[in-house]
C-alpha cells in the first residue's frame, strides 16, 4: 500500500482507526473498564482545566512569550500514557504542558515554570516550551520544529544500546511531519530497528497552514512507507482508540520489529499560540469538533450512559481537578522569581 494517497482527508477519519498495509490487526477500540474510563476522564479534564487556567494567566500577563495550549487534543497523550510502561520515554515539541501532566510531573512546577518562577520545573529558566524530568522519563519540551524526532530516535537508540526493553514515544505535529530530519530519523530507526513510536499529532494545522496546503500527501501515517515503517491513522479524539493503537504499537516495538507510526487525528480548539486569532478556519469547524467529537464529552457520555458515574460524581471530579489547578495557579503566582544568582548556573557541569 506504499504510495497510497488520500488527498481528501481534511475531515477526521471516519472509522475509529484506519489500518493500512499489513497492520490490519490493530484493534479499533479498547474496551475500557469503569476504572479506566474514570481515569481517562479525570486526566483529560485535569489537562483541560490546567490549560484553561494557563490561558487565563497569560491573559493577565503572568505568563509571557509563547504559550501553546493543548485543549482539544487531550485524548492523545492520556491514551498513550495509559498504554505506557514505567521507563518508556516521551519527548515532544513546544505544545508540551499536557505531556508533562500526563507523565505525572508536578502541576505546581509546570505552572510555576510558565510564570517563570523559581519553583518551576526548570527553575524558571526554561519557560513553557522547555521542561524535563529524568524521573518521569520526559525529555522535553523542544522549540525547534522536528528536533524532538531525531532526539526521540536517540532515546530509542539508547534503549536498544542498553537492551532495556523500553520504548520511546516521539510526538510531533502535522507541520513537523514535513521536516527533513524526520525522514533522516525514520531511515535510521528502521535501519537499526529502534524501539520508537512516532506519534504524529495531526491537529489539521501547522500554525495557520492546513495539512492540505502544506503536504503533498495527507495520509501522514504512510509517511514511513518508503522506509518500511508501518503506520495507522487513529481517532485521536477517542481515548480508547488511542490506547488500543498504542498497545499495539508498543508490542510491535518491544518485540523488536523497529519503529511504528501512529497518526493521531485530532484537533486543537485554540489558536497555535496565544496570539493566534485562528482566522484560517471557520467558527463552524471549531464548533462542530467541540460539540460532536470532544474527547472529554465522549467519556462523560459513556460514564453516564453506563451509569458508572452520576452527574454529582462527575462534578466532584471536576471540583477536585479545579482545586489542583487553582493550587498550581496560586503557587505559580506567589512563588518568587528566580534569584539573580541563577543567571549563571546550569550552563556547564
Amino acid at each position, binding site marked *: 500500500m506504499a504510495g497510497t494517497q488520500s488527498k481528501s482527508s481534511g475531515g477526521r477519519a471516519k472509522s475509529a482507526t484506519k489500518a493500512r498495509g499489513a497492520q490490519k490487526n490493530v484493534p479499533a477500540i479498547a474496551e475500557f473498564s469503569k476504572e479506566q474510563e474514570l481515569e481517562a476522564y479525570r486526566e483529560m479534564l485535569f489537562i483541560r482545566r490546567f490549560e484553561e487556567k494557563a490561558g487565563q494567566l497569560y491573559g493577565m500577563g503572568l505568563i509571557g512569550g509563547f504559550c501553546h495550549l493543548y485543549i482539544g487534543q487531550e485524548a492523545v497523550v492520556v491514551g498513550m500514557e495509559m498504554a505506557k510502561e514505567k521507563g518508556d520515554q516521551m519527548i515532544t515539541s513546544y505544545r508540551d504542558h499536557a505531556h508533562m501532566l500526563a507523565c505525572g510531573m508536578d502541576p505546581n512546577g509546570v505552572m510555576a515554570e510558565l510564570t517563570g518562577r523559581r519553583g518551576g520545573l526548570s527553575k524558571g529558566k526554561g519557560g513553557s516550551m522547555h521542561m*524535563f524530568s529524568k524521573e518521569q522519563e520526559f525529555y522535553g519540551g523542544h522549540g525547534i520544529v522536528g528536533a524532538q524526532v*531525531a532526539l526521540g530516535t536517540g532515546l530509542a537508540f*539508547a534503549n536498544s544500546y542498553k537492551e532495556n526493553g523500553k520504548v520511546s514515544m516521539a510526538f510531533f505535529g502535522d507541520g513537523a511531519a514535513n521536516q527533513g530530519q524526520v525522514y533522516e530519523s525514520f531511515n535510521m530507526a528502521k535501519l537499526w530497528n529502534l524501539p520508537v513510536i512516532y506519534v504524529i499529532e495531526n491537529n489539521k494545522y501547522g500554525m495557520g497552514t492546513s495539512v492540505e496546503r502544506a503536504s503533498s500527501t495527507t495520509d501522514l501515517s504512510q509517511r514511513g512507507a518508503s522506509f518500511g515503517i508501518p503506520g495507522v491513522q487513529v481517532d485521536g479524539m477517542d481515548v480508547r482508540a488511542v490506547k488500543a493503537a498504542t498497545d499495539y504499537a508498543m508490542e510491535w516495538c518491544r518485540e523488536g520489529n523497529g519503529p511504528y507510526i501512529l497518526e493521531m487525528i485530532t484537533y486543537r480548539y485554540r489558536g497555535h499560540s496565544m496570539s493566534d486569532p485562528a482566522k484560517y478556519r471557520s467558527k463552524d469547524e471549531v464548533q462542530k469538533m467541540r460539540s460532536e467529537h470532544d474527547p472529554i464529552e465522549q467519556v462523560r457520555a459513556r460514564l453516564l450512559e453506563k451509569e458508572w458515574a452520576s452527574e454529582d460524581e462527575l462534578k466532584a471530579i471536576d471540583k477536585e481537578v479545579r482545586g489542583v489547578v487553582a493550587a498550581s495557579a496560586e503557587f505559580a503566582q506567589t512563588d518568587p522569581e528566580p534569584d539573580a544568582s541563577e543567571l549563571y548556573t546550569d550552563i556547564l557541569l
Partner: protein
Amino acid sequence: MAVEILMPALSPTMEEGKLAKWLKKEGDTVSAGDVIAEIETDKATMEVEAVDEGVLGKILVAEGTEEVKVNAPIAVLLEEGEDASAADSVGSASAAPEAPAAPAAPVAEAAPAAPAAPVVSVAPADPEIPAGTKMVSMTVREALRDAMAEEMRRNENVFLMGEEVAQYQGAYKISQGLLDEFGEKRVIDTPITEHGFTGLAVGAAMAGLNPIVEFMTFNFAMQAIDHIINSAAKTLYMSGGQMGAPMVFRGANGAAARVGAQHSQDYAAWYASIPGLKVIQPYSAADAKGLLKAAIRDPNPVVFLENEILYGQHFDVPEVDDLVLPIGKAKIVREGTDATMVSWGIGMTYALQAVDELAKQGVSVELIDLRTIRPLDMDTVLASVRKTGRIVTVEEAFPICSVSSEIAYQVQSEAFDWLDAPVLRVTGKDVPMPYAANLEKLALPNAKEVIDAVKAVTYTS
C-alpha cells in the same frame, strides 16, 4: 460571587488594545469557552473567551473603546442567580466608557544590574610527566585513535558514530581498527544525514550514553548545528540542571588543501560563542590525545576541532598509561620577553616558523598555544602580555568576529595599561576559500605575515 473580566493580553508584546465588539450583552448567560468579545491587538483581531460561567452583569468598557490597558476590568460576571446590583460592588467606578486606568500596572523599575559572571576557575596545570618518561613519535591521527580506544575500553557507554567510521575505517582513517576491537554496536556507520544522526546522538546522550559524533568535516556539521547548539548546548540550562548532553562532536575543521570554499571553513569562533559548549582545537599529537580523552570524560557537550593537514604530522607523545590533559588550560610553548604570540590548532605551524625565525633575528617571542578556545585561558595570555606589553594572534579563520577579535577585546579591557602597541592579528583573509593554488596560498596566513606583525608591535624592522 461576581468576578471582574479583565482586558487580556493576547500576544507577547500587547500592552493595550481596542475593545472592538461585544458579542454578549448585559444579562446574557455565558458558559466557559463562549466568545464574549473581540479585541484588536497590535497584530490581529482576537476573540476573548469566557473562562468562568455565569451571567454578564455589567459591561464596563463600551465597544469601540481604544487603548484599553491590559488587565483593566472590562465587564463583571455574575454567578447564576446573583443580583445585578452585585456588579456595582465589584471594582472601582470604572464604568466610564473611556479606557479605564489599568490597575497597578507594573511600573517600569530600573533594571537591576546583572550579577557578575562567575570567574572561571583556573584549570589545573598539565599533569607532571615523570623525568625519564619515554617519548614516542606519533601522528595526530594515531593519537586521536588511541584516545578513543582507551576511553571506549574504560567506559562501555562511549560509542563512535559517523560517516565511514566503521567498515571504511574512517574517511581520514582516524577510527582505524576500532570496529575490529569494539564491534558494530559501538562503532557505527551512519547514513549521510548529519542533521538526523547528530540529533539521534544528542538524544542518546540525554538518555545517559556518551556518544562521540565524527563529522567527516565540520563543514558538514552546518547541517547539524541546530542540534549541537539548540539541543546539546542549551538543554542543561533549559532544564534547570536536570539533564544535558555528555558527548563529543569531533572531526576535521578548517582548510585542507585545494578543496574549495565549501570544505575549508574554520568554525572555532562559531562554537566558541555558545554558552553551554566547550571547544577544543589542539595542535600537537600529545594535546590531541590528552584533550580528546578529557573531552570524552567531560559531562558537557564538547566540540573538538581537528585539522586534516595536521593528521599526518608526527609529534612526541609521552608514553604514560592515562594521558588526560586539562580542558581550558593554555600552554606556553616558548618563553620569551619581547612580545606575546597566541595561536592554536594549525595556526601554530605559522607561529612556530615565525618564532624560530625571529629568534635568529634576536627577537624573543613568548608563544602560547591556547589548545582550548572555550573556556578561554585568558589568565595565561594576560600574564604574558603584562610581561611583554605586546601581543600578536595567529589563526587561519576569517578575521571578522573571530577568536582573535575576542582575545584583542579582552586584552585591551584587562591589560590596557600594559600595552605598548596595538593588538595585531594574523588571520585568513576575508574571502571564501579560493581553489586556485596561488589564490589559496594568498588567502591563508603565512610565516612572513606573522613575522611582520611581531615586528610592527615591537617597532623593529
